[in-house]
């Protein structure tokens, strides 16, 4: 297949369709709307299900119902809409039905704005929905990665009967880049045994997230946790740049990660031995990779478009072995490579203290408006 120039939003939509999406449910919200609009054209054209729901609450529960039939289903939204979906996501996790969710993050909290941000990391990676639940979270940084990870998302969702979130920020949704779409996969014909079907095979199937008897609920939780161990063992993904001889490591995901790549190259051009680790699976998090790096490098710089959410996971992995610094921009403001380069130099030239919290040091450096 030849390369095509696509916006991240439409690339994800078309990739999902090519991956055999049976049903899409969504509600308009910027900067994700092109995805829904693409679906509104393509899905009916292909004779597949498309519903513009009355709300994100409606959308996620339509997905819940559709997922119970064992079909390939997805929804997409942006931050405020994702907040509304949390209840449904928890039910879906508790019922162990597969689904794909795309979150095109924007500035917040609250109504915020429609500019790119990464401030839903904690909500998505560390829960949001109630109960012990572990969505698989994939964070592409380019249109091609968005396509590939969307296709992968459906496979992982089905393999682990899990929620898989493709987490991008508004800029990747709006950006155009060449990408190669997969060929059109046929729709699934076999449905998993657990799926409700109203069939006459003599089996009655029920799907629910209620386990009134606590020991039964505990058994369910144990099953979910053991399955999550499997995910942690098999599904860690990340990309390394210039790490072979690096003495310092910059790390960031999605757009912040690719912006950092420019900064790392600029630093390399000045002879600074720095590399980049860009986590692709945010959940499971490449904890061991970071732990291993912390044995041989001198320091880490975490860069995000939030107030240091992935930072906590990096710090847990580094476990105090080496200094960690943080640089973030928030509220829809994007860091430029020269800002990150400045931070790299500060880290390399100065002594980064092991005491205190990197977030506090970062806040100290940020301007005070009031």
């Amino acid at each position, binding site marked *: 297949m030849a*390369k095509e*120039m696509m916006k991240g939003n439409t690339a994800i939509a078309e990739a999902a369709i090519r991956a055999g999406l049976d049903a899409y449910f969504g509600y308009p919200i910027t*900067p994700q709307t092109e995805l829904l609009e693409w679906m509104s054209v393509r899905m009916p054209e292909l004779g597949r299900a498309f519903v513009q729901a009355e709300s994100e609450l409606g959308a996620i529960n339509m997905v819940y119902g559709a997922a119970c039939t064992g079909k390939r289903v997805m929804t997409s939204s942006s931050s405020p809409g994702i907040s509304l979906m949390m209840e449904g996501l928890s039910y879906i996790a508790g019922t162990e039905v597969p689904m794909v969710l795309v979150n095109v993050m924007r500035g917040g909290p609250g109504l915020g*704005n*429609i*500019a790119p941000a990464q401030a839903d990391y904690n909500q998505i990676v560390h829960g949001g929905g109630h109960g012990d639940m572990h969505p698989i979270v994939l964070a592409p940084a*380019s249109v091609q990665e968005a396509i590939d990870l969307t296709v992968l998302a459906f496979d992982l969702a089905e393999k682990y009967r899990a929620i898989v979130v493709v987490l991008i920020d*508004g*800029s990747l949704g*709006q*950006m*155009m*880049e*060449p990408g190669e779409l997969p060929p059109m996969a046929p729709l699934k014909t076999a449905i998993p045994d657990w799926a409700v079907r109203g069939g006459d095979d003599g089996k009655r199937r029920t799907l629910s997230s209620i386990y009134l008897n606590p020991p039964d609920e505990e058994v369910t939780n144990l099953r979910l946790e053991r399955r999550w161990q499997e995910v942690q063992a098999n599904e860690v993904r990340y990309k390394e740049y210039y790490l072979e001889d690096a003495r310092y490591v910059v790390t960031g995901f999605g*757009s912040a990660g*690719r*912006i*950092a*790549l*420019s*900064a*790392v*190259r600029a630093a390399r051009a000045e002879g600074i031995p720095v590399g980049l680790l860009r986590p692709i699976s945010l959940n499971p998090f490449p904890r061991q990779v970071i732990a291993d790096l912390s044995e041989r490098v001198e320091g880490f710089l975490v860069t995000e478009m939030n107030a240091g959410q992935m930072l906590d996971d990096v710090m847990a992995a580094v476990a105090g072995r080496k200094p960690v610094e943080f640089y973030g921009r928030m509220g*829809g403001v*994007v860091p*430029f*490579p*020269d800002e990150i380069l400045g931070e790299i130099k500060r880290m390399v030239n100065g002594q980064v203290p092991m005491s205190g919290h990197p977030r506090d040091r970062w806040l100290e450096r940020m301007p005070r408006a009031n």
Partner: protein
Amino acid sequence: MQTEIIIAGFGGQGVLFAGQLLAYAAMEEDKAVTWIPSYGPEMRGGTANCAVVVADEEIGSPFVKHPQAAIVMNLPSLDKYEALVAPGGVLVVNTSMVDRPCQRPDITVVEIPANEIAERLGDRRMTNMVLLGGLLAQLPVVSMEAVDKALKEHLPERHQKLLPLNRQAMQEGASQPARV
């Protein structure tokens, strides 16, 4: 090798499309490329800009602060981007829409009365193509042929008859003198 270009002007001046053409042309030449629009509240206010990065390796930041080149199609864009073009870079100015010269001595400046040229060619919508021609003459980040091909592939059916005019507009722009 990486080249960064910003195109800025009012909405409706073909700013985003000119950027997309560059991107399509770069893809045509098998280069890595990103195109990113400004989006958000400013969209409604009427100003528009986009950043295009063309490279021969995986592109890092699609966001650009100090581009190697900028096309500014109106005065607010000149005011904003004149100072931001990297030293030694190129600034293409649509003099039809600005009332002052560019002050930077350390960059190549191409001043083009693009609205007038487009009108003389008989179609005001060619303004962006005139300026794009002016840019490519100084900074051949993609070939005119590739742009031509991109145009052919991405102009809507009903505008295909405008292909020769687009080409002529680019050439007019390319023949404008530059101040180094």
